């Protein structure tokens, strides 16, 4: 069993770490404070090729697969969870188009989403459809006269919704069939009838703008349907499987960084005449954090390996996300304890990491829905 990275993967890890340290870390606190998407950094990510991970070079992508995504997202996650989320979530759109799109759609949209520096988004969630994706109410009615679909409805909590230029949107083309009547569409921001609403004011992940989407008689050419009619739900579920591994990677990154910071701090902070790192209590905390994180990492890498080798990975993707996200909360919480009062101050990144980590247990599927997915797979 060879757990080592290839030479190229090792170089990618180094590059992602350099990028995170040089571009993401210096503005992470400011971005969090301002609650604004760092557009420049996204453009830089595109220029280096991060936004093209998993897309073949012929379409402007950077090649690679799930493991490359995990490596990049986790390194970003160490320094700025919002940036890690942005990258991970952005990639859902190009990957869906790659898996289900026609050659024409791939040629048209993939270069824009990779080298072109445009932001992608994935729009499934609605006010009545969170864990219960079947609650989707957005409809797409076919207009034979113009060969267009007319979309009406709203989406909420969409990451990148306020800025994304290209969105994969899920709507009911045959409402009477429920989820079997759901189809996927490629929407462009400047299409008439599309607008985004206010940007949500969140506890964390502030640099990833989360917004409402409004479709009012949004007319989209039938050629923009992604995949076959009625296959939308399946496409959404499969896209979420892949996205889950991205969240696992994010959670992995923030946990690793929290441990590094805690180790450093416990060597420097002197109380009662010695560094607190000499106290067994602190040592045991760190042992727990390190062990649990190592396990979380291994499961994320395993899920990525299954995905890259073409094997089924739904269960493992759910497991790695469930596990890594809970671990991220555990580790960042304990890391704040180790840092004491300083951990609570905004001068240190810990409190932002703590706030950012929490979302990993909720979005891209809650921990609870993941348990449903896992038990279903295990108990069949």
């Amino acid at each position: 069993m060879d757990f080592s990275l290839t030479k190229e993967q090792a170089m990618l890890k180094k590059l992602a770490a350099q990028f995170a340290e040089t571009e993401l870390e210096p503005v992470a606190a400011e971005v969090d404070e301002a609650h604004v998407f760092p557009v420049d950094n996204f453009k830089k990510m595109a220029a280096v090729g991060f936004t093209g991970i998993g897309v073949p070079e012929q379409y402007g992508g950077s090649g690679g697969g799930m493991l490359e995504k995990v490596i990049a997202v986790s390194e970003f996650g160490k320094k700025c969870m919002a940036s890690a989320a942005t990258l991970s979530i952005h990639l859902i759109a190009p990957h869906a188009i790659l898996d289900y799109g026609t050659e024409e759609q791939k040629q048209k949209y993939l270069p824009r989403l990779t080298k072109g520096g445009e932001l992608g988004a994935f729009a499934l969630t609605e006010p009545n459809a969170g864990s219960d994706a079947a609650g989707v109410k957005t409809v797409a009615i076919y207009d034979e006269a113009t060969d267009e679909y007319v979309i009406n409805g709203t989406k909420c909590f969409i990451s990148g919704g306020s800025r994304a230029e290209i969105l994969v949107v899920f709507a009911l083309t045959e409402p009477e069939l429920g989820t079997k009547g759901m189809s996927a569409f490629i929407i462009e921001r400047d299409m008439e009838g599309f607008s985004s609403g206010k940007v949500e004011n969140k506890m964390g992940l502030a640099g990833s703008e989360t917004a409402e989407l409004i479709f009012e008689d949004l007319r989209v050419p039938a050629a923009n349907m992604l995949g076959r009619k009625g296959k939308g739900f399946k496409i959404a579920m499969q896209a979420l499987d892949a996205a889950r591994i991205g969240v696992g990677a994010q959670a992995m990154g923030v946990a690793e960084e929290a441990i590094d910071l805690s180790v450093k701090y416990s060597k420097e902070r002197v109380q009662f005449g010695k560094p607190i790192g000499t106290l067994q209590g602190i040592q045991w905390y760190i042992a727990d954090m390190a062990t649990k994180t190592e396990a979380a990492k291994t499961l994320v890498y395993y899920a990525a390996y299954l995905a890259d080798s073409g094997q089924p990975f739904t269960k493992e993707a759910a497991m790695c996300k469930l596990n890594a996200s809970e671990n991220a909360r555990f580790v960042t919480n304990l890391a704040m304890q180790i840092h004491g009062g300083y951990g609570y101050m905004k001068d240190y990144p810990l409190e932002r990491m703590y706030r950012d980590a929490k979302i990993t247990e909720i979005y891209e599927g809650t921990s609870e829905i993941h348990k449903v997915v896992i038990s279903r797979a295990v108990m069949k």
Partner: protein
Amino acid sequence: MRIYVCVKQVPDTSGVVAVNPDGTLNRASMQTIINPDDLIAMEQALVLKDATGCQVTAVTMGPPPAEGMLRELLAMGADDAILISAREFGGSDTFATSQIISAAINYVGLGEEDMIFCGRQAIDGDTAQVGPQIAEKLGLPQVSYAAEIVKEGNDVTVKRMLEDGYMKIKVQTPCLITCISDQDSKARYMTLSGINHCYEKPYQVLDFEALKDEPLIELDKIGLKGSPTNIFKSFTPPQKGVGVMLEGADRKTAETLAAELLKKHVI
């Protein structure tokens, strides 16, 4: 047009540096990095490549692990790479090193339109000598401390930094330029596509056999034995001890401080 960029893999002396109990430096404790001035030299070369489509070749003299650095430079955008490596070359001082690199460049070929870029100095040796010495060996004009390089045909205009300003210098190719990094200079990143293809780009290793008959090599002046300068003794300065609280806060205190600083060559 071809630009040779001479680079060196160095220990990261600005990071954590551990000292062994016997006072010697723990080299294993230091990360290796691409010498910062050399990275900027590569960036300058790549800027010219973007503008003119010229060929950029990364060259280094070092042990086999230096290949990793060359692959990174290929991933940044260099077209091909050369590793000069041999037991016989090890332990060379700047005179010997510049000889060997000059011989290698001569061996591969230097055309009338070509240039050699070097970083001004390496952060381990800090001598800033190899660049100018390569220029002398190859009989090329040199411009050091270059902050900006503009090329028009075979004319190169360089902004050459002084401590309190700069000179604008014009030179013709072939020539050698040493580049400096400052707080504003930033080398580009590797790209993911670059990483994907860096192991496919042309890569050659020049060993002792390949270069020993080159006219520029004086066999008795290479390697540890041949280098004109040798290390007589190396030692670590005494470690920083606990500080001193000076007595009082008056004229005498200030004078005591000034005397201490004078003694320590701080002022």
